[in-house]
């Protein structure tokens, strides 16, 4: 049974979440059919239940931001495919909820950022998430562009935990080092 009564409707939370996401305004039309849950891989392996999460969002129940469940979504878009309603974009709603959760500092508890340190380092120094990509990384002189785009993003804070970051202290020094190596390589050729 639904643990809420009709008087519990509260749109503030929902409006804040979808304020800039037009394509998610239709969440309000969710008919609670549960089809999304039936097809959801995250529901198979955790207590993640997106139908219940939508209910909470529509009732303004912010406790959802503290739940580990929202970090289980696979962002696989299966729910979008099976939902009988048009314009309900659950993966995007989940990303917004996670963002709010981050803002309130609950996020890192469930989103183990240590797992991203290496990937962040590769991306901000090479332009790819893996070391030694097939054709080498982004040319060093173009790396500054990526770093500029990512200014103030969480990826930069994650990067700070990498040994590379400690060694070189600033990303651009790594880039400078790569530039130098590249020049030496050209000279040798």
């Amino acid at each position: 049974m639904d643990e809420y009564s009709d008087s519990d409707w509260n749109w503030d939370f929902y409006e804040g979440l979808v304020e800039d996401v037009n394509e998610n305004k239709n969440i309000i039309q969710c008919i609670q059919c549960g089809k999304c849950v039936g097809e959801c891989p995250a529901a198979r392996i955790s207590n993640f239940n997106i139908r219940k999460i939508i209910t909470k969002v529509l009732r303004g129940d912010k406790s959802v931001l503290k739940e580990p469940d929202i970090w289980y979504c696979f962002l696989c878009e299966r729910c979008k495919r099976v939902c009988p309603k048009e314009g309900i974009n659950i993966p995007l709603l989940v990303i917004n909820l996670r963002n709010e959760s981050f803002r309130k500092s609950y996020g890192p508890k469930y989103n183990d950022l240590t797992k991203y340190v290496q990937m962040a380092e590769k991306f901000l120094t090479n332009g790819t998430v893996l070391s030694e990509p097939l054709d080498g990384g982004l040319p060093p002189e173009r790396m500054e562009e990526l770093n500029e785009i990512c200014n103030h993003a969480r990826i930069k804070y994650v990067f700070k935990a990498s040994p590379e970051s400690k060694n070189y202290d600033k990303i651009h020094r790594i880039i400078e080092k790569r530039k130098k190596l590249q020049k030496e390589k050209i000279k040798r050729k």
Partner: protein
Amino acid sequence: MVLNNLSLDHEEIRKNYPENPLEFFKDKKLCLFKACLEKYFPGVRYGIQDLLEVLDLDVITCANQSCCSGTFFQRNLITRPQFAAINERNLNEINHMADILLVSCNGCYNSLLRGRDFLRQSNIKKKTQAVLNNLKKNSSGENYPGKYELLKTPRLRIIHDLDFLHLIKDEVVNTLKFNLKGLKVAVHYGCHYLNLERDKRTEYGLKDSFFKDKTKLEDFINLFGGVPVDYQERESCCGWGASQIVLHEKDALKITFQKLKSVQNVGADLILTPCPTCLYTLGKPEHRENILKFYGEFIDVPVIHLNELIAILRGCEEERCVNIRKKDPRVHKIYEIITLD
């Protein structure tokens, strides 16, 4: 301005080139989008590059392309405008050198289209523009200011490798030396191909094709002389789940295990996928071993990307792409099955 109208219209090509859709691509410049995971599976790249060269198509890669950054967006490490700006930067670079962008990875494909989708939102569009403007302000010399604009009318069109290869399937088949000799093959499309609607021109009423059964991999298996086998978990996720396998390995591997078990139950000889991320998840030896550890069963059905399989069937393994096989026992196993009498 239709900002998200980046996907190549397959139906239009079929209509205009009913005899041979390859003709449409003959005078075009084709660029291969570089997926990070091609590092582990070079055959995914070289397999298609070699084929295109043999078919006399003009094919390039873009040195200034970065990773699609989907991994970081999906885990909230970059914002939507930043993600859209990284995407727009890549599209700018590729747009000025190519007409068609071929994408070998479902993740990159989703990212490229999603980045454009976000620009339909006026505030995201504004913020993305601001990020790019800032780039211009701070750039100098070679970073030619004015370069990164939101592309209003890009000439570039994007197509997934699977859709492209399917369009020219008759030509592909003509290049083959070997066949699948009646092998039973299970397909795994991957969520961001199977469940995607971004590549459908919904505004023109083509949404139907989103719901239609997706059977292009099965078509290929038939054309290659194999037998497609259906299985219960055909449409389920590989277990990658936007890095769930990194964060909750045991739980995510349960999804992988259920899929592989279901494939084994129908007696499939191999699994065919059009995505290197799914390939990584389903095929990584460490994952198979951990499945044994966590769930008590070792499943050894090999998995292969469509581009790799075409390379093997073309006999390209023996020459140019030989390294693919030597470095990877997974591909070697399939190569032996297919090529040995």
